[in-house]
């Protein structure tokens, strides 16, 4: 289907189902139950899952295929967000022009940075991109305050022109982002089934649509001659050069495409919540997407999406588990022992979520170098009976020994 072979079609269908049914999948526990705090099926987090999924898929197009490790990808995300918010301020609250503009601007920005940075490879390339991203961050934070509103963050105001839309709603407040007039990003429909409550949000489904589109394009790139050339760059760039192939146009194209993906993610973030802050461009945000990709499985198609979901889930759900909740969990223990256990466990929850995240990242990198995807494959192999020798070799991503 759509020019994909059977395996890729299945993969696309799986992602489509996951995206469409996410409100059900992410809310497995009834509202009133104690486990409801592990539910992730609320609009804001679902939107983040798919938006950061897009970001990571785009990053993987560069890192997974060419092996060029960009440490400044958050800059494109930030540029995308700023562009989108400016469209909301100047043109109107429709998200489509804003998203289109953010993709274009991020693409141009990526062209500029890529043109300079791709003159070097390896660690020098990473450092160059990191330097550019930090430069963008600092500029957004201070020098470019008229454009970015600095520390306060770029926000909509009542006095914005919005020449194609309304400047203010009838009751004098700032209009909200919409897809069509009347179809607002924040609109949700709720479905109550027994004790369960499922929320379907317009903004989420728009983002999910873009994720599927982005994923489809990523598959096509992976399977194309262009994708093959990028893999060749990763495995041995020198050999390519010796055979007379100029690799830089290919890597630059990959870098720009990847930057446009990040711009799309940034534009979507701003469409869901029209605010852009400089911290979106900080190096920690760039590091996060690297971790997402490696955690999920660099160079695999679905890995980055899984990694993004994994990290965002931790960041939003795990960080909410404070000491009171821990005391509830261990309330079956006698008082003294309970306090002791909570004291031991507490640093790993709540504000310490990044600590447990780090430990888990280390474990995955050490024991599953192929990320979550490799984990899935290993589990799959446990249940598969005696795989044919050739089949196992082709489906695995582990390096040849």
């Amino acid at each position, binding site marked *: 289907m759509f020019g994909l072979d059977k395996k890729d079609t299945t993969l696309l269908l799986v992602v489509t189902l996951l995206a469409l049914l996410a409100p059900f999948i992410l809310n497995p526990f009834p509202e009133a139950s104690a486990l409801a705090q592990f539910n992730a099926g609320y609009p804001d987090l679902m939107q983040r899952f798919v938006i950061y999924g897009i970001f990571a898929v785009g990053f993987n197009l560069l890192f997974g295929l060419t092996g060029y490790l960009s440490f400044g990808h958050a800059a494109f995300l930030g540029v995308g967000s700023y562009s989108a918010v400016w469209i909301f301020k100047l043109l109107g609250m429709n998200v489509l022009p804003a998203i289109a503009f953010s993709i274009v601007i991020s693409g141009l920005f990526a062209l500029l940075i890529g043109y300079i940075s791709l003159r070097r490879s390896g660690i020098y390339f990473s450092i160059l991109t990191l330097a550019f991203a930090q430069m963008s961050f600092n500029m957004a934070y201070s020098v470019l305050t008229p454009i970015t509103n600095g520390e306060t963050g770029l926000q909509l105001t009542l006095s914005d022109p919005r020449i194609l839309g309304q400047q203010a709603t009838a009751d004098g407040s700032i209009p909200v982002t919409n897809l069509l007039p009347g179809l607002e990003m924040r609109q949700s429909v709720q479905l109550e089934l027994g004790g369960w409550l499922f929320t379907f949000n317009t903004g989420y489904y728009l983002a999910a649509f873009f994720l599927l589109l982005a994923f489809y394009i990523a598959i096509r790139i992976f399977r194309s001659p262009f994708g*093959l050339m990028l893999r060749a760059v990763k495995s041995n760039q020198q050999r390519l050069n010796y055979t007379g192939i100029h690799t830089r146009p290919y890597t630059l194209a990959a870098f720009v495409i990847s930057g446009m993906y990040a711009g799309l993610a940034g534009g979507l973030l701003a469409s869901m919540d029209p605010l852009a802050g400089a911290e979106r461009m900080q190096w920690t945000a760039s590091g996060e997407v690297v971790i997402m990709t490696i955690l999920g499985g660099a160079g695999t198609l679905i890995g980055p999406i899984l990694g993004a979901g994994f990290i965002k889930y931790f960041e939003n759900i795990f960080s909410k588990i404070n000491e009171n909740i821990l005391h509830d969990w261990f309330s079956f223990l006698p008082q003294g022992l309970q306090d002791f256990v909570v004291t031991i466990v507490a640093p790993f929850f709540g504000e310490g979520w990044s600590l447990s995240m780090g430990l888990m990242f280390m474990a995955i990198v050490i024991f599953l170098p192929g990320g979550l995807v490799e984990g899935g494959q290993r589990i799959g192999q446990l249940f598969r009976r005696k795989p044919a020798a050739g089949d196992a070799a082709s489906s695995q991503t582990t390096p040849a020994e």
Partner: protein
Amino acid sequence: MSKSNLTRRGLLKTGAVAGAGLALPTIFDGATWAASHSGFTNAPQGKTVTLGFNVPQSGPYADEGADELRAYKLAVEHLNGQGDGGMLNTFSSKALDGTGILGKKVEFVTGDTQTKSDAARASAKSMIEKDGAIMITGGSSSGVAVAVQGLCQEAGVIFMAGLTHSNDTTGKDKKANGFRHFFDAYMSAAALAPVLANKYGKDRKFYMLTADYTWGWTQAASMKEFMEKEGWSMVADVKTPLASTDFSSYLAPVLSSGADVLILNHYGGNMVNSLTNAVQFGMRDKMVNGKQFEVVVPLISELMAKGAGANIKGILGSSNWNWKLQDEGTKAFVKSFGTKYGFPPSQAAQTCYVQTLLYADAAQRAGSFNPCAIVPALEGFKFDGLGNGPTLYRADDHQCFKDVLVVQGNETPENEYDLLNVAEVTPVEKVMYKPDNKFFAGGNLGQCNSGA
């Protein structure tokens, strides 16, 4: 290798299928946010009501955030009838009776704003969408307060601002669902300027370092306006990034600029660092233009004084509240806070505690948690007994008007908490302004939004 039969028709088909999938769940004409229950966002179901406490637990204002959280927990205890009741006993409105709000037990969720607008909004959103918070309160930075206030307006919940001192919070960014008890930069400048002119003389040149975001900007503009009225002249106003931890490079040019007063429009960890740097430069012992060089910090808190240590001695500034005030409300609050935590509360703690009580009282008086019932209950509300004397919640901009304290770093502290002295209490009339004052014009409250 690849099957690149990407045709126009194939693409159209993909688009149509994906479009149908996208449209299917949203085709029902839906209510917004979680308003499906009883006419407004997150209407409390069952026997409890959930409040969202969104405070910085990391970043330059983390100390303030921790103290705010302590105050919120204390307020929840008092509302639920535990502890000694604190300021509920001195509050002029007697609607609250220690059985929660409208008979529902008060519960809370907390979030970390990280002193970043983005993170604060994400955290507030998850409290509204996931935890069902009916009111969001907190924030130790005006950038965050403005961002979260806008979000609450859209979502249809009440926002009770915590520590936010920018003119914009109840000025050009004011919102119908947002309320601020804390004072603002204009009031600080109006209260401080006459005292400074009196103490340091009329003919002074001042140099300002300003935190580079909405609070710093409005604070600097207000100080400039009022100091120039007193005959002082400004040499320079230099913006510093909020994330800076070392200010030496910003301070180096000050002494050679000819200025004889340094005004630090910094707060929290920023101010602790910049003041410490200034003292290390020996600025406070210098004579410039034949006058003693002076440092002024327009907004001072106890936590900053504690961080700055001996450097704070003699420094003039303003505060919303101080634990050494001798009214009944303050005494009751300091007593119950001290009993629970072992030290006196900061002004951040006081404003957050009071905001929680004011919200609960408004809901109780209105007989409903509906934001559009609570807004009129707070608008124009006059109260007393919460530590600041008689106070008015003005209807035009949802700002509280009350006396402002001019404070000075204590030269001879008796203990580690005895850091600030109240130098003067500026009566509310002196700091009052019209809602369309040039520092506040351009905003619009809009209509209250209940999310229905």
